[in-house]
Structure formats: structure tokens, C-alpha cells
């Protein structure tokens, strides 16, 4: 289960992102933080350190010149 975010962590993350929100926006955002944490839990699987990420890009021509 995701750990609920507390006020200080919530404020810190918004400040680090440079976002200035109204109180109403903060309240709404806080109400959906658990949804993000749940998603973050879902993508964590026991996969070991050697499991690579998906790559989007290969080498373009300009990388090989």
C-alpha cells in the first residue's frame, strides 16, 4: 500500500517543481496523490538489477558521424 503524503512532503514537492497553486488546487491535487502512488507501486516488480528499461531511440545518423 502506498504511504499517504504528509503536508510537508506535499509542499516540498510542489516547491521543487516550481509550482505555485491556490489552496483549492492543492486540496484537489492532494486528493489524487494516492492514485499516483498506487501506479508507482504497480510498476515495481521483483526484476533484479539487470533488467533494462525500454529504449525509445536508437542511434541516429547524426550520432554516428
Amino acid at each position, binding site marked *: 500500500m502506498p504511504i499517504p503524503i504528509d503536508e510537508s512532503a506535499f509542499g516540498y514537492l510542489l516547491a521543487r517543481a516550481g509550482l505555485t497553486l491556490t489552496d483549492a488546487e492543492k486540496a484537489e*491535487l492532494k486528493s*489524487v496523490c494516492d492514485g499516483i502512488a498506487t*501506479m508507482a507501486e504497480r510498476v515495481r516488480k521483483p*526484476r533484479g538489477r539487470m533488467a533494462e528499461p525500454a529504449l525509445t531511440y536508437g542511434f541516429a545518423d547524426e550520432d554516428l558521424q
Partner: protein
Amino acid sequence: MTTAIPTIAEAARQIAAKKLSPVELTKACLDRVHAHDERLHAFVHLTEERALAEARAAEAAIMASGPKGPLHGIPIGLKDIVDTKGIPTTCQSKLLQDNIPDADATCAENLNAAGSVLMGKLTTHEFADGGPSFDLPRPPARNPWNTDHFTAGSSSGTGAAVAAGMILCGIGTDTGGSIRGPAAYCGIAGLKPTYGLVSRAGVAPAAYSLDHIGPMAWTAADCALMLQALAGHDPRDPASAKRPIPDYAASLGGRIMGAKIGVIHHFHETDHKVSDDTQRAITAAIDTLRSLGAEICEVQLSPLQDWNACGSLISIVERAAAYEEWSRTRLGDFGERMRTRLMLGAFVSGVDYLQAVRRRRELRAELKAAMADLDVVVTAVFPGEAPPIDALPKWDVFQQPSFMMPFNVAGYPAMSLCSGFGAKGLPLAIQLVGKPFQEATVLRIADAFEKATQFRDRRPLAA
């Protein structure tokens, strides 16, 4: 109801035979824009004079030496996140109201080179995300089948304009379903190609590694004709694939006897149960495909929620990164829905993001294995008919897993096709998913399905 609006294939044949004038075709489309767009809001910017000039030039060229291809003289539209030289490209945002690009996006350039007639720029959710919003410079598009209902997004204007016959085809973009969704709710065909097949250069990003550009048209055959002009390597797009491009139209019309089709039953029957109407339409579509000779089997993948968690985390972070500068300095200039989506980026850590990208590799491998002996897989596009436009949950990303996002995560080609009509008379759809760069197979099966059913004979009242 009317069926007077030609498909691209029909119009191209008549134009080539000099039985249809591109000028008259363009004027007919403009007439429909003038008759209906006050209610549909499909266009952000109508380029009427340019369209007529291009149509006259096409007509003169065709009369002199014949058409250069099936799109020559065909009226099209571009989603308003596609850069167009000298034409406003606003992304439906207050932030870009004065933006006039000095170069075309590659997809716009390719369609122009094919001789198409640009009718204008089409409504989108702001920066292709977060809609429908009622606080943007222009109102959201309305569904031509019932204007009280949603078009889906974010290629909302393209879906509405094609369905209403204002254009014969248009560009959509798809980060988590934005081609297939509006195609489904508006009752048209929409193809999200394989990642890298169609250049993203000059198109505003929503999430770099999930963004796809593709065709939206009335039929699968028309999508094939449009894809032919769009597909190909582009050094301006770092993810552009170097692959041979087949003749997509040549793949159509063939039999699908022996085609192997998997059905991901658990996506739409368990993970996110669809309405009875939608379930009946999916079952009927599978029966139709079986009657055409396809072999049907069941496919099991990870739960839909896993695919959506992966895609949503990637999407949230990539969007927040793309628009970080404006988020920090001009957050209040975004519409409410886009603003709130951008805020989410603060709550996904770098490690969360990379775990999602690692999960993506696993999920893609899983789909590859599941499709090893198959040609396509089938699932739903939406759980039901288009909902009323004023009754949409703001945070559906957490509540309703998307049937489309898995194929943005995998980068596989996926297509929405009309598969009937629900109790409210609105379109229903199925989704066909192919293997990477196997668009020809998807289009062939889609075309066979459309020709075996009568759903292409019915146009919305607004048309």
C-alpha cells in the same frame, strides 16, 4: 442521413476520371463547414481562401497531366498541434494564440506534397491533453451524432470534421488513445501507426515516447491511402524508423481466410467491464471475422491496470518535462484540465519513472510473445457510447483504465473501427492491434470487416 459524402477512394477515382472537380468537392466540404461548424466547433482556424486556391491548382494540374496520387485534390484538415507554415498553430492554448510557425511539420509537408487541399486547423484538447475544457480560447468540439455528447479527445476536431463530411480525412495524434478515441466516438476509422513509422517532427509533444501521428478517415481504406503519404523515415524525428514502406492500398480487398486473431477478453470483460451494447458489438465483430475465415483464439496479458499505470506515469513525467518552463512561469495561462495534469508531474519521482520504463520493456515483451502466432489482437476502445460532454470525470486517469494506452506503451499499431451503434444511437467501436510495422495486415483485416458490415453506410444527422 446521407451517404453523399465520398470516401477518398471514391473521390480519387472520380477525380482521376475527370468526373469530379476538386474545386466542387472542396466547395461541398466548405458548405458543410458553414452549415454545421457553429454547432460542432471542429475547426479552430478555417483556411477557406487557401483551400479554394489549392483546389483550383489541383484541378488545373490534374486536367493537364492527371493526378499525382489518390490525395490530389482531396480536402483534409490538421489537428492544431501540427505546425503549419504561415498559418496559426495555437495548440488550443492561451500560451500560443499568436504562434505562426515558419515551417510545416513533416506530416503537413507530406500531405501537401501529395496534393491535398488544406481546409484548416482542427480543434484539440490543449496541447493534446486534458480535455474537454470550457476555459480555452475556443470551445471543445461536439459529436456530430449528438452534439450534447463528447467526441473524445484529443483529436476531437478531426473526429467531428471527418464524421460530418467537412473533410475527407485528417491528422490525429495519439499519446494514450487520441486518434482511436475520437475515431470510436465519432464513428470513423483511426489508425495509430507503429511508433516511429510517421514522423513527429513539427508536432507539439504530449509525451515524447508515447506520441504517435496518424490518419483519421471514414474508412480503413482511406486510412491506408493517407498513411501511404505519411509513412517514411524523417531525420528531423530522432525516433523515426528506417523501414521499407509497403503499398498499403495493395494489401486491401484480399481475403482474410486463415488470419489468426486473438481476443484479449479479460481487458474488456474483467479488468474494465464494458457495457452490454459494447460487449454485444465486440462479440458480433468477432463472429463476423470468424465468418470471413479468421481463426479466433483467446489472449491473456497482464491486467489492463498494469499497462495503464506504466503508460500514465511515463506520460505524466514526459508532459511535465516538456512544459516545465511554462508550468513554472505561466501556469495560470493553461486551461484548468491541462494545468492539473501538469501538476501531477511533481509527484512522480525519477525512480518511479524509470521503474515504469523498465516495466514497459517487460510488457512489450509480453505482447510480443502473446502475438507470436497471431496477425492481430482485438479488444474494446471504450466501455460504451460517448457520454454527455458535461458529465466527464476530471480524474478518469485514476478511475477508468484505458483500452488504448497498452498499445502506446508497446508502440504497436492499433486501429479503431466502427462496429455498430448503441441504444442511444451513438457509434460503438472495436480495436484491432497488429505487430510492429504490420499496418498492412491491420488495414487488410479492417477493410474486410468494414466491407462485410453495413456500418459505413450510415452518417451522422449533422452531415
